[in-house]
Every structure is written in structure tokens, then in C-alpha cells.
């Protein structure tokens, strides 16, 4: 269960690409052990928010803190160390297609910083251990990512995300492109792993079944702002017309989606 200390805190985050202001003052908190899911229509800034927290995109304004340390004002080494606590499962799994599956899982252990690196033998053992945790046999380790199905790639991506035993896990559209059964398997794995590791998690998804299954709390973004935040159990009774429209998948309502660019 979550405790009150914030693992990650985002305050008044702004990000603009040219004339398009994607994030317009986002506030988000993630408590220790909490699982937050960010939902919202396409183009509302969910992925940009995740990328800003990961340091892959520089925010224009606002504050991002990990363990109470402001990422902007702290030194690079400390910043890298704090971000090393985060494991990420990317939307398309983002596996390195030139190396076998086990090397993907153990990538940070083989190629990361001095403090992360282990021997090749230990790295392989850890990779096989992580593959087992996501329901894959050690035999899969010798295959190349291209030899795997979409669901298996997601599992390998999850194994890679947990290999360094991170304190926080990020899931970017973890079930997109998967059939409902495989999606449920991935959701179950996410819930199990996050609980087993005692980790905090931020996920972004369009998949409401997935959101309800893995979230303690759900946050909805619309046009770069948080418009609703509450327990996952209250999503269907949010009382917010935009959330209702999104949850019920209606074209009519306060959220106007343009069909033309």
C-alpha cells in the first residue's frame, strides 16, 4: 500500500514544441508503493509528461523531484543516479534488435555504469531469472527480438525494466497492439511485479480495462492539464463530464476530437 512520502513529484510542468503547447502546468505526485495510471485522449501530452520525468525531453518550466530532490537544480551525477531507480517498459517494447533477448534484459548489467556492471555469467543468470518472472523460459533468451511475438516482446521489455530492481516502474501504453487475453496477461504481470518489488509505478494508457486493473489512482489529462484525479474505483463515478465521455467512449461531449488535421 502507498505511504505518504512522494517518490516522484511534478509541479506546474510546461512543455511546448514550436507553437504547440503540449503541457500547460501539470501537477502529479506518486507516493511510495503507489501505482498511478495517466489516461487521456491521443495528443493530450501523456507521453511527453513521461519523457520529461525520464529526462528524455527537457521541460520548459516547472519542477520534477525524485525522492524530494529537484532534478533541475541537482548535479548531473546525482540526477543520473536518481533516474537509475526508474525502469521503463516502452510502448513498442523498444528491444535492441541486434542483440539476443537475454542481452536485452541484462543490457544495463552488461553495458551500464561501473556500479551497475556485473560479469557476463552473472548478467545472464539475472536475465534468465527476470525472464522466468515474466513467464518466459531461459530458451527464449537465445532468440533475437524479431523472433518473438508482440506479447512476448512486451514480456521481455518488462523483464528488462525490472532487471536492475528499480524503485519506480514506468509503463508506456503497455497493452497497445495486444489481443485482450495477452493484454490481460501483461496487466497481471505488471500488478504482480510492482507488488512483489514494492515499487511505485506510473503507467500511461488508453486501455481502461488495463488502467482499472493496474491503478491505485487514475489521473486524466486533457489538453495538457490534469482535469481529474482519483482512486481507480471511482473512475466510473467521477462526476466529471470529460472523464465520463472518455470512459464511455462517446464522440459527443465536452471533448471535441477533430477528424481532420
Amino acid at each position, binding site marked *: 500500500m502507498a505511504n505518504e512520502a512522494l517518490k516522484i513529484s511534478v509541479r506546474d510542468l510546461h512543455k511546448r514544441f514550436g507553437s504547440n503547447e503540449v503541457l500547460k502546468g501539470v501537477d502529479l505526485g506518486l507516493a511510495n508503493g503507489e501505482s498511478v495510471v495517466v489516461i487521456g485522449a491521443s495528443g493530450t501530452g501523456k507521453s511527453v509528461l513521461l519523457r520529461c520525468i525520464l529526462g528524455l525531453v527537457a521541460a520548459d518550466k516547472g519542477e520534477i523531484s525524485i525522492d524530494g530532490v529537484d532534478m533541475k537544480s541537482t548535479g548531473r551525477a546525482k540526477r*543520473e543516479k536518481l533516474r537509475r531507480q526508474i525502469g521503463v517498459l*516502452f510502448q513498442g517494447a523498444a528491444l535492441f534488435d541486434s542483440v539476443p533477448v537475454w542481452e536485452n534484459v541484462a543490457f*544495463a548489467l552488461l553495458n551500464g555504469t561501473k556500479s551497475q556492471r556485473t560479469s557476463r555469467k552473472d548478467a545472464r543468470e539475472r536475465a534468465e531469472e527476470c525472464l522466468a518472472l515474466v513467464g518466459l523460459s531461459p530458451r527464449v533468451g537465445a532468440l533475437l527480438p524479431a523472433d518473438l511475438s508482440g506479447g512476448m516482446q512486451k514480456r521481455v521489455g518488462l523483464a528488462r525494466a525490472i532487471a536492475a530492481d528499480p524503485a519506480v516502474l514506468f509503463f508506456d501504453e503497455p497493452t497497445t497492439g495486444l489481443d485482450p487475453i495477452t493484454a490481460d496477461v501483461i496487466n497481471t504481470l505488471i500488478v504482480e511485479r510492482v507488488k512483489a518489488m514494492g515499487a511505485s509505478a506510473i503507467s500511461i494508457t488508453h486501455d481502461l480495462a488495463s488502467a482499472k486493473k493496474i491503478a491505485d489512482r487514475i489521473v486524466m489529462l486533457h489538453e495538457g492539464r490534469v482535469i481529474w484525479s482519483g482512486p481507480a474505483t471511482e473512475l466510473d463515478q467521477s462526476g466529471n463530464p470529460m472523464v465520463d465521455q472518455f470512459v464511455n467512449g462517446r464522440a459527443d461531449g465536452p471533448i471535441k476530437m477533430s477528424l481532420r488535421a
Partner: protein
Amino acid sequence: MNPVLFFQIIGALTLDAFRGIGMLSVFITNTVGAVLLPPYYGGNVMAMMLRIGFNSLPVVGLTAIFTGAALALNIYDGSARFNAETFLPQILSVSIVRELGPGFAALMVAGRASSAMAAELGAMRVSDQIDAMRTLSVNPYHYLIAPRVLATTLALPVLVFIADVIGIYGGYLTATLALNFEGATYIANIENFLTARDVISGLIKAAVFGFLISLMGCFFGYHSAGGARGVGAATRAAVVGSAVAIFASNYVMTSFLISV
């Protein structure tokens, strides 16, 4: 045309140009830093040397032998106009080691390896693999860019040396089989005329070409965006950029190497 629109276009193009120069400057700085400073990924450098250097040998060799053969015919035909056919070995060898060997080998590697680098890094960029690498605390400049740049810079002089030998041999075949030159005299003329300075200047050019080719391939691939179309554009830009960089730097280096 609306004058305001005209100035808007000029302004946008200028900003784009400066943005490009800025991005390239940052990329070069990061790349040089990654080549010089640890961590080093020796295995990646060796793999790239094999892929870029060794695997380019057949195409570079074929180009060199036909270039040497055709050059011999051209030199013979041109020099016959002022009864200087006997200088064919000297002119051919110096042309190859100073200019054609480095130039053609670099163009072949640009077409083969620079485009491959741009396509591979571009695909990694658009499929989030480069971002994934960063989240795993692995610096893509150290892991991906530095090995490619280092491998190409080291491999191209070796390739060019081999191309020089094959190119001169191509000229030898034409001269002895089609132009009635005596083989031993042909070789002796080259030995007496060609200096170490000629060869070394070609190899220096090759190293610089290697650096520029890999830099173009990596730069455009690393910054590609917009899915498959973006990767295609990056590949095209890498080959064009490499070719322009080869020709432009060739003139600058030739001026410098002749003057020293």
C-alpha cells in the same frame, strides 16, 4: 509575392541553417568526447571495423581495379598527344594514391556504410531504442556513435591502402596486356617515382574522409524523426552529406598537403 512572406521564408531558412549548425556542433563535441573518454566499448569497435572495413573490401577492390584500368587507358591516350606515354606508370600511381584511391574508396564506403549507419540509427530512434538505452544508463554516444566513428576513421586508411595497390595493379594489367608495356619497367618506374609522402597524404585524407562519412551517417540517423519516411530522408541526407563533405574536404586537404 507578398514581401512579408518573402522575409518570413528567408528568416525561417536562416533559423533552420543556424539550428542545423548548432545541432551538428553539439553532435561533434559529444562524439569526440565519447571517443576520447570512457566508457569504451571495444567489442562494438571491432564489430564495426569488420562490418564497415572488411565487408567493404569487395566493392572497394572492384572499384579500384576498374578505375586503375580505365585510368591507364585515359593517361595513355592523353599523354600520347605529346609523346609522353612512357610516364603512364608514374602519373597513374600518383593519381591513384593521392586522389582516386582515397576518393573512390570513401565514396563507396559512404554509399555502403554511411547510409547503413543512418538507416540503423534512424530505425533505433523511431522505435525508441535510443531512448530505452538512455533509460538504462547507457550513453548512446559511447555505445553507438563512438564505435562507428572510430571504426570508420581507422578502417578507411587500411581500405584505401588496399585500393591503391589494387588500382595500380589494374593499371598494370591494362598497360602490360593492352598497351604493350613491359611489366618490370612499369613496376620499376612506380618504385622510383612514388614517394612515401604521396602515400601518406592519401592515407591522411582517407582517415579524415572516414571521420566525416561516419559523422554524417550517425548525425542524420541519430536525429531522424517521422517514422519510415524520416529514416529514408536521413539515409539520403547521410549519403549526400558524406559525398559533399568528401569533395569539399578533399580540396581543403589537397591544398594543405601540397603546401606542407
